[in-house]
């Protein structure tokens, strides 16, 4: 079996791994201190960006954009720049960022400091979803306090001439602020309605200044990558999907949990880690990367490896690495309805297709489950989903469309059965 927890969760078995003492004694803040005390220009911003690029680290928030490349978009200029961490973990199925904030917050802090240095951002904000108010916000706040106490953050840190001030921000409950520009709007004190792109945050971000927004896991990976080198990181995983990722495995498995593993492991191996299927049921389907990714029936997912390319070729995506396992006997219509309800409830209301379309999708599914489905409802569902996809300001529209398209594509007979049988489920 492949080794677990080699990057971010390498400290997870330590006593109180979240404390600064534990972090320091396992080599934490070495990289940051090296940067601060560097007199030979060994650790220049260019070197850091280059290392990250070479490592092949891709954004772990769902889009998988190469991180080093994203950082290189930040302009060289004297104006204020920002590094922002997206800790608004809300993608259904995903719960690994929570554990990072709980068990290794200092990796995030150090990662943000290094990212700030690399992108010329002297101020950073860590946007934490509001519901984490008690669950893990106190811990990341405490960690931040500890880092300041030791003089690792602030102005002219350790007499280096380098400034970096970091603040934790608490949200108030809206999935859409997980979209990077929606997050920036929320950080500015507005409703979290995404901006149209271009302009991109690197040119016009927080308060109109150049900003880089990265996911918690992406930033928490940085210290180790710089410390151990890009080759070390890319030695895990595959050529096109290097490194490790934390899979949140949930659903009908015996040992749901967060498993930090190299990309490219087989689905079967991951399922084994997660203790196999509950009650020995057979696998029916998997949503591989959070509810915004397309569902894959058992026969397809079982021949996949868990990386960006394999899942994309299979017609879905790695997304956030939130693997939702669905066993035989589950009604796919009810499941799709629940997923659609989520997008209906969480759409921000800004642009026409989502605002009007997600409710339509949900209500059609609702009437199908209540026995009032009409003959052309399935065709209508897919057509409405198709008309939302690609036509919205942000990817939320696509995310609301993909489940509908993929569920009906792969489980058409279930939907058809329910329509024809007054709301009875084929899985019942």
């Amino acid at each position, binding site marked *: 079996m492949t080794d677990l927890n080699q990057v971010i969760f390498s400290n997870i078995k330590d006593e109180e791994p979240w404390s600064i003492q534990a972090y320091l004694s396992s080599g934490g803040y070495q990289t940051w201190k090296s940067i601060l005390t560097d007199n030979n220009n060994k650790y220049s911003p260019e070197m850091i960006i280059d290392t990250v690029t070479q490592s092949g680290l891709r954004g772990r928030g769902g889009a998988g954009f190469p991180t080093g490349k994203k950082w290189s978009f930040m302009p060289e200029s004297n104006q204020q720049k920002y590094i922002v961490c997206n800790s608004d973990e809300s993608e259904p199925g995903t719960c690994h960022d929570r554990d990072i904030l709980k068990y290794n917050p200092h990796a995030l802090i150090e990662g943000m400091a290094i990212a700030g240095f690399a992108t010329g951002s002297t101020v950073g904000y860590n946007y934490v979803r509001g519901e984490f108010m008690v669950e893990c916000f106190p811990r990341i706040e405490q960690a931040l306090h500890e880092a300041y106490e030791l003089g690792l953050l602030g102005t002219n840190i350790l007499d280096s001439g380098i400034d970096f001030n970091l603040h934790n921000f608490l949200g108030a409950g*809206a999935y859409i602020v997980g979209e990077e520009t929606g997050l920036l709007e929320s950080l500015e004190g507005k*409703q979290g309605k995404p901006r*149209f792109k*271009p302009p991109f945050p690197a040119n016009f971000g927080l308060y109109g200044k150049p900003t880089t927004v990265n996911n918690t896991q992406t930033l928490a990976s940085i210290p180790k990558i710089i410390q151990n080198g890009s080759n070390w990181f890319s030695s895990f995983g595959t050529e096109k999907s290097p490194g490790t990722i934390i899979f949140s495995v949930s659903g009908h498995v015996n040992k749901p949990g967060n498993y930090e593993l190299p990309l490219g492991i087989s689905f079967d191996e991951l399922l084994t880690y997660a203790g196999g299927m509950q009650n020995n049921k057979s696998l029916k389907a998997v949503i591989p990367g959070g509810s915004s990714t397309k569902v894959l029936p058992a026969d397809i997912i079982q021949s996949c490896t868990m990386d960006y390319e394999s899942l994309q070729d299979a017609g879905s995506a790695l997304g956030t690495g939130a693997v939702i396992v669905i066993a035989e006997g589950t009604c796919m219509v009810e499941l799709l309805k629940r997923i659609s309800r989520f997008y*209906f*409830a*969480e*759409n*921000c*209301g*800004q*642009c*026409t*297709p989502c*605002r*009007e*379309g*997600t*409710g*339509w999708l949900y*209500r*059609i599914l609702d*009437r199908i489950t209540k026995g009032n489905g009409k003959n052309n409802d399935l065709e*209508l569902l897919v057509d409405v989903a198709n*008309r*939302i*996809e*690609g*036509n*919205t*300001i942000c990817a939320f529209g696509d995310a609301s469309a993909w489940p509908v398209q993929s569920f009906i594509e792969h489980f058409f007979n279930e939907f058809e059965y329910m329509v024809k049988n007054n709301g009875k489920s084929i899985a019942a």
Partner: protein
Amino acid sequence: MSNKKVNITINNVLHSVDKGRMLIEVTDELGIYIPRFCYHEKLSIAANCRMCLVEVENSNHALPACATTVTDGMVVDTLSHSTKTAQQSTMEFLLINHPLDCPICDQGGECELQDLAYAYGKNNSRFDLQKLTKPNDDLGPLVSTDMTRCIMCTRCTRFGSEVAGIEELGTMGRGETSNISTYVKQTVNHELSGNIIDLCPVGALNNKPYRYTDRTWEMDQIQSVSPHDCVGTNLYMHVKNNKIKRVVPMQNESINETWIADRDRFGFDGIYSEDRLLTPLIKSNGTLIESTIEESRHQLNAIISSLIQSNKTDNIAALISPSVSLNEQFIFSNYLSQLGIRNIDHRINQVDFSGDTLDPLFPHLNIELNTIEEMETIFVIGSDLRRETPLISHWVKKAANKGASIHFMDIALREYHFPISDYIISDTQSLVENIGLVAKAASTIAQLDVPQHIQEQLDKLSEPNATHKQIAQSLFTKTNTLLLNGLVSRSHSDFSLIRSYINILASLTNSNLGELTSGANSVGAYITGCIPHRNLLGQSSQAGLNALEIASKNHDLMILYGLEIDDCLYDQILTKALKGSKKVVVFNSFMESVINDHADIVIPINTTYESKGSFINLTGQVQDFNQELLLPNHYYSNEALLTDLVNERDLDIPSFNDFIKELESFIDQSIANRNYIKEFPVKTSNSSPIDTTNTFNMYSIDAILRRSKPLQQTKESKTIT
């Protein structure tokens, strides 16, 4: 904007267009229509309606034309199948919850949703579920709300935050139930608020007073000019059966862009007031009895003749409203001057006339209104700018948005919705001293020699403080600077001195200068000689009595043209004069109680809303209007009335056509000469006892506005007495 061009192909035709523009701006200019709702050229880009999605090569989905910058080599197809599909999709989504209100919705016939649904939608609906409804707020007496119709384009909220500068409306909630609302119960009060009626592409925000009256296709559209201030806002009147049903903006990029003030929009209602004068009245045995135009004319001329014969021409006085049309001013002024009557004035809100000999040919602003936006420093003295001239305040705000430093000096703290660099509040007495100190600060900074008499006057003042110096410095260092002298200043008891200081300041700092005046045509009044010290085209005359003097004396004959007591700053004094004068002749459109009590002859005249004529705005632009179409066949124009008055005496007055021919060059030259006043007035009397600090109520400055029912129901009207 760089002059670089890029080549783009639209519908198989290659175009060379400016780099860096949005696709929709480019296609609009080329006359290639892309449908849209949320995009508006005066507002920021929202890109939320998704109606402008078009196919662009190499993009795997349609792109919004309003938010896509043109790039070299771009290939766009606005007519392709995928463009049409995107348009149909958007339209279908918009219509699923939109109520089928067309038969009862005022917007029907001029509704962007209707038009685009017809052109770009499908002809059937697949939606068979329950439609949503949204709650309505009461936004006040001017704007109606039917928010179930709203398509959340956010033009109204963007107007509030970007143009008006005040956020009264916002988007509440999230998702499909989100709604445009004030959240708390309050009305929308900004003086430009009515413009959201035009902006709303559907029937969610409509003209409340106009509700359910008419259909757009039944009305005629007539161009007009607002008679309520010196801006000369361009309007369209929508008319049916010779009645004005509503007023909307006419776009004029150099005056009012696409906006009009609420008083420009709703003022016209006043002309249908119940106390409208339709028949002449002559006093007989103490009561006013209906008579004829001919008889009233005869009697007026008879009174005048008798007074001329007994050498009492100087006991005849006339006050004329500053909002009278140019042709009427011309005839009226010439009529009086030909008769040797020198006591004529229109400046019924002014109390200090010691500077009359220093008067420019006409008070004006020497730059175009839209040039105000380019100013880097603007100093506004003695003005409740938003209420006096809402659209000039709008232009000042535009300059502020661009980073101009705006400074105010006033007798009260007013609310503005843009950043202000300095706000000097002084009481009425020290307003003069304060403006003098800025001029003094400027004289210290000025490199050139200040004339001795000016220096002597400035030396009498105390020392300028840091703010005075800051303002002066700002006016010096910037190239494009502007001073605006407002109506609070104009009605000040030391107006002439204030004006001299302002002129000196302008001259020292090489600033542009704007003098705001009351009414729509003070400029015309000056040029036609409706002032005691000048005749036509600025020729000096032997001075007659000024407005305050006229109002403070009992005359043998007092004539009022187009004005009521409430138009005048010293209404109580004027009332006494009317009471004490032997004969009073009033030309008015409405019946007023004071007139009723004291007039001997009352002659009805038409409002400018129903006349053919012109106004000259404060930048010297002569704008014609022709609204004679509004009246039924027995219409008797004011011009005809006055001409008959003249002809009855066989007077030989100059030709109006000749005057018009000379007018434009006269105006242009006068403005181009930029003659700042460089003298100080000689004060002949002590400070006037008149209280000139009354709060300016922007909806009661003329007879028509005071009778406009919608405006009188606004918060503005109700809070200020």
